[in-house]
């Protein structure tokens, strides 16, 4: 099994193939469309991360020492970024996630999508993933 760092490097490399912003967005939109469907019954208030812009739902399940994440958003580009995050972190051990510095998020170069402002639920989603991991170490 590849390490968390290896997977992150792959994701960053894939994403850096696109020079143009609009191509990056095309790629994210495509990923967003192909994201595993999120069950409607899980779209509950306690799974909702509300932002001024888009809404994000995050569901976490724990199996032994591994954490599994499913997420959704009403905005498609955010959904594409969710797909990247879930692909990297879901199925990893709590310890791996807790010890990660999440710098790969910076390396993706999606700062305005992920900045910790009120505007967007993604930053809160990342914070929630880290917190959950720490609690399960």
């Amino acid at each position, binding site marked *: 099994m590849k390490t968390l760092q290896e997977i992150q490097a792959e994701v960053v490399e894939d994403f850096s193939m696109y020079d143009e912003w609009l191509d990056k*967005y095309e790629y994210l*939109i495509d990923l967003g*469309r192909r994201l595993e469907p999120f069950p409607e019954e899980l779209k509950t208030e306690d799974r909702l991360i509300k932002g001024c*812009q*888009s809404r994000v739902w995050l569901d976490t399940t724990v199996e032994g020492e591994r954490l599994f994440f499913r997420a959704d958003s009403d*905005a*498609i*580009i955010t959904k594409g970024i969710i797909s990247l995050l879930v692909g990297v972190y879901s199925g990893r051990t709590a310890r791996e996630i807790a010890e990660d510095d999440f710098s790969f998020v910076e390396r993706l170069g999606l700062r*305005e*999508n992920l900045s910790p402002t009120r505007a967007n639920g993604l930053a809160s989603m990342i914070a929630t993933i880290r917190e959950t991991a720490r609690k399960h170490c």
Partner: protein
Amino acid sequence: MMQVEKIRQEFPELGEQVYGKPLVYLDNAATSQRPRSVIRKWTEMSERRNANLHRAVHRIADLATTEYEATRDAVRAYLNAEYREEIIFTSGATASINLVAFSFGEAFVREGDEILVSEAEHHSDIVPWQMLCQRKGAVLKVLPVDDSGRLCTEQLPALLTPRTKLLCVAHISNVLGIVNPVKEIVNICHSNNCKVLVDGAQGIVHQRVDVRELGCDFYVFSGHKVYAAPGTGVLYGRRELLEQMPPYMGGGEMIGTVRWTGTTYAPLPQKFEAGTQNIAGTPTLRLALEMAAQMRESGAEQELDRVKSFLFKQLQDNPKIRLYGVPDSLEQKIPLFSFSVEHCHHEDLALILDKMGIAVRSGQMCAEPLMDRFGVTGMLRVSLAPYNTMAEAEYFMESLARAVKMLEG
């Protein structure tokens, strides 16, 4: 056309590039760009006029105070207020409204009294009133808007009771862009002994404001939306009311004498200007309002009307687009359009447009109750200033079509 190009030269930010593309700035309702005259004054106040106001006898303090007080005279004249002490400087419209909510509330609002706000208000004209009502045990009531975004003023007489102390309404909603019939509203309220506060954050930019003609009791606005420095703002209040209201904050030059046995307060306007004021920023208001008047009087205004009609028609005629705030006549609307596009999330559209060099606003626009009213989680908004061009509007429409196509797949 030449006129607009000349105006644009005065606003350095408009010459910027984003992602290698010329910036198309269509988020003026959030904050407007600043002309060189404002930037120069702002710098001058820091480089050559920096001293605290009203309290020292030295030369620089005198120069700074003179600038500051000359600004008060200029704002008075601009609003056609009767007295200079009716102009209170604040840090913005939000601060002005909070001041009134506290001080008017302390003086005039008792348990069981009512405050009436319109459904289309900005959070800054909702939350301070909720806080006041909570503090005083008063009741907050809402004047609705109809599906087209028009304020239901015909419901106003029925909503007013002998206990309604104040009605708060935007001159122009920051979401709907429709000019509200403030004069008519004031007449109805005044004949019911109810005072009126007008949130002029958008109104001051697009209308010639005459507070005596409007007849309102309070008129508030922010400097940064009307080309001035951020952190500046104005509260106009009728002298007779301001005199009866207690101070909002204590300290600084708002005092008469201070003794351990008690303090007396300075007369208006200082009574409401506690602490060190925005020494560098406030004097830019004079230059900014001059610029606003100049642009209104120049040919730029007619050009802007043409651009407004173009955008309105384009957005209105598109079956995929739902436009919020559709007045009977386009004259009642400022060049501000909030809308949603079928099957496209406002955040996605705003992100894609951003990468095409276009700055627009998306989201709840600080008006969550209005979003609920229209059953949406957010909208996309374009808001124009007289320095925006027809070419920019056309580029926006093309880019929007391209963004929609990307999202539709």
